[in-house]
């Protein structure tokens, strides 16, 4: 197994244990968009973490070491990597990657924003404000949904969300857990148990079905319909597109979402630390990829 693959697995696993949720907007690169040739999506991929319940960033990218804030290290122990300051954890690490190793490997690629004060006086509006940039409306999409809608409006799993505020603004459909065995079957929805060598229909029959469905959809589309009916109709996707694009997603899931991690995920999310349950009136995001929120769990 390659090291980056291993890291991704561990990363997700530990995120789950820490009670984090994430949204993965999968989109198509501009070059792929230009082609529109049913090619599997090649990236880039966006991962948005929402550390609901909070983690203590003073143990990673926002070290303090003063006034008893941290007991594992003092101010003089704080390490640097270029312009980055980070907390030393190598002496205490029991599993996973120490900060020292993390910065040695990825420090040159990081942009860290230690805190954005949203100054919102309430929990769920704060989460929404952070995710969408809009405080006073429920209609706007999250950043993740917006990226998915822009990059991959026709990707079958453009926007994966694992919870928390996930409004799509009707721009893109959200998907839930990518469970690899399910995905394999879905990628071959026209074959028995996803086995490509056992199609439900001979190809000439399948083509006839698709043709009839296309004609039926066109007939429906020619009728005056309510806006909701129009939206429902446009959710259909040609068979070939679904299959190829789901196929394209599978290797990504295989790397990013090990079977056990996905299976066990529901027991991890929303687990809160005592600190995480604290009632705080403000919201701060702690880096460009990690956002920390303190909010009562529903």
């Amino acid at each position, binding site marked *: 197994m390659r090291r980056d693959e291993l890291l991704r697995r561990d990363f997700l696993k530990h995120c789950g244990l820490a009670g984090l*949720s994430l949204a993965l907007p999968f989109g198509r690169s501009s070059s792929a968009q230009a082609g529109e040739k049913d090619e599997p999506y090649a990236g880039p991929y966006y991962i948005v973490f929402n550390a609901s319940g909070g983690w203590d960033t003073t143990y990673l990218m926002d070290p303090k070491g003063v006034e008893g804030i941290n007991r594992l290290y003092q101010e003089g122990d704080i390490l640097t990597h270029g312009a980055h300051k980070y907390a030393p954890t190598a002496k205490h690490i029991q599993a996973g990657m120490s900060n020292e190793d993390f910065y040695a490997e990825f420090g040159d690629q990081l942009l860290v924003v230690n805190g954005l*004060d949203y*100054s*919102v*006086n*309430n*929990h769920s509006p704060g989460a929404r404000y952070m995710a969408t940039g809009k*405080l*006073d*409306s*429920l209609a706007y999409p999250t950043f993740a949904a917006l990226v998915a809608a822009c990059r991959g409006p026709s990707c*079958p*799993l453009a*926007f994966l969300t694992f*919870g928390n505020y*996930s409004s799509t603004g*009707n721009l893109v*459909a959200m*998907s839930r*857990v990518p*469970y690899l065995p*399910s995905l394999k*079957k*879905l990628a071959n*929805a*026209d074959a028995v148990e996803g086995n490509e060598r*056992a199609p439900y*229909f*001979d190809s*000439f*029959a399948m083509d*006839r*079905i698709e043709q*009839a*469905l296309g*004609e*039926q959809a066109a*007939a429906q589309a020619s*009728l*005056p319909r*309510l*806006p*909701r009916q129009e939206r429902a109709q446009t*959710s*259909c*996707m040609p068979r070939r597109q*679904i299959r190829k*694009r*789901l196929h394209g997603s599978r290797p990504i899931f295989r790397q990013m979402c090990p079977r056990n991690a996905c*299976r066990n995920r*529901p027991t991890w*999310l*929303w687990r809160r630390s005592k600190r995480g*349950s*604290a*009632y705080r*009136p*403000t919201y701060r995001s702690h880096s460009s990829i990690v956002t920390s929120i303190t909010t009562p*769990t*529903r």
Partner: protein
Amino acid sequence: MRRTASSILQDPERSQIAEQNEAMRHNRNAFARMAASPVEVHGSRLLLKIVGKLDHGGRDVLKPDSTGYRILAEFTRRVTTPEPTELPSSIAAPKNDKPFFEGVTMLDNRRLLRRVTLSLAGRLPTSAELAALDEQGSAGLPKLFDGIMKEDAFYDRLREAFNDIFLTVGYDGGAEQALTYEHFEKTRLWAEKHSLDHIEDAKARQQARYKLWNDYRKAILGEPMKLVEYIVRNDRPFTEIVTADYIMVTPYTSRGYGVFDQLHDSFKNSDDPFEYVPVKLKALVGRARSTDQESATGFYPHAGLLSTFQYLRRYPTTETNRNRLRARMYYLHFLGVDALELAARVSDAAAVSAKFEVPTMQASECVVCHKTVDPVAGMFQDFYQPEGVYGRRKDGWFKDMFVAGFEGEDLPAEERWRSLQWLGERTAKDPRFATTMVEHVYYVLTGRKVLLAPKDLDDPLYAARRRAYDEQRRAVQTIADRFVQANFNLKQAFKEWIVSDFYRADGLLSAVQDPNRRAELDDVGVVRMLGPEQVDRKVAAIFGEPWGKMNEQLAVLYGGIDSKEVTERATDPSGAMGAIQRTLANDVACKHTARDFAREPAERRLFVGVEPDMVPGTSPETDAAIRSTLVRLHEQIVGRTYASDSPEIERAWQLFSGIVSDSHDQKGFDPREIYACRPASTGPMPLDKAYTIRAWRAVVTYLLRHQEFLYE
């Protein structure tokens, strides 16, 4: 928003008409005073403040070029020079005197009945129901709905849908942990000690033990929603959801509470894990005297759902949260108010913390919500154990919170032991309760929540969105009034919504291009993608058995919930959900087509007038029989009745006959259905020499992929 005399924040949108008018008048007068108050020579105080030009604690809330500012400027002009004038076109809403539903087509009675039976009872209309409808027309609908709402399947759906709202099956830990160690340590694990000695085989005995535990846990999880069912099934006022002085228990769960012997004779079958009966528990007795429950009557102070252990455990608290989550959920569930949205705003939290010792009681931007939320949080103060159930806080209730009470009325000290009952009684009388329950029924029927009021005045479609919102609010209020008149019988709310234009809207007479009209109609029509449980029930209603694969991971992937982390159903299909729909269509058609042909003609569900050897084009009678079957399949699967020479039937005919024809061009095809689609046990396997069985399967697959099947 307005504040009452006791400074409780309320939302006029949620109040009754008279209260709304009073609130609007109050607010209007306050604005008028401010608008008429000049600041030296600079102009209206109101207009200056609103753009941040006066030194005050707020900030600029409107831009000078915004619609909101222009409206206020016009308001100020009218207050100071009150001659009647036409509104400037920049802020005047377009006039629209036409009825809201003009041009919208409605479901006819037969299709309405099909929608209702599938949605609420998981079945198709019976021939007797259809005959009654044909005879009595719309006048017969209420009686038919009454019949549907007596069926067990309706209550399955009711419990499922109300769990979507309350999520009570989703609490953490084992189900039996809702019964705390402190008060039920000797009884809650009864399933472990229950004698199964009559089962000699050790392995079978262990399996029986597993089943005992599973049934026990399932029965505990089911109690809160069985309370909902009990109230509705027995036509009791739905206010009991917050006032019932009982809970529902089964022979299994009553053992957990230690009251089985007391209830033994109440059960028809004391071995049935899921026979629920109402019971009033005695006040809890703890392992230590200090944990005994105080009670003036000797009974547990039940307050419907509010005091069930499952509800309390589903929404637990902590030393820092102080029951505020519970208060929030109480407002959301029973009064339709999202407390966190009452006054969301930005503020300098650090400055507030530095300035005030107890910001939640002193800083206006905090008090605005905490004055409402914290008293209700205090109502739960005796349910403060980490497990979520009974137990007082060791150091007494917090002094740095507003005292326990409800919207300006403090909880009397002598009522503390029954605080949730006290809260429930006031909740039941609150007009917001009725409208909230009516909104819950709307959610059950449509799968989505009622509209929120549009806020963006600069939205060019604001007036249209506002009209849609107002129209729906009127319907909610009208139905709520009738619900109250019917003594809070929830069935009345179902019946009112079902016959409303909101539920019957089915299409348009002509295409609408006007963006304002499109915005008005944006949320009209059920057009609901069926959830995993619903689509499985629909398959069962049509084909005689559910698909059976829509569970666990696949159900969540198909937009279902687990009541824990995933609590909102996905209502728009993603590509993955589209693929599941394809799989379902292929698999269900595969399972049922050849199987139906293997049955005697009189026993068939799908293919009554045709046989595998009937090939299109061989005789007029054969063609007529095939077309007749196509008509029936459309009626059964997509609920549409078409003439045999209609374009829809012609399209299906072309599909069927085209496949049969194409098959003749194939070299040596197998004269049998594919292996996976052969019936396992229903008589001899019919051969498919003419390829018609596979062609019929293609027709069924085609119909199962129609929007009309997958949507409601």
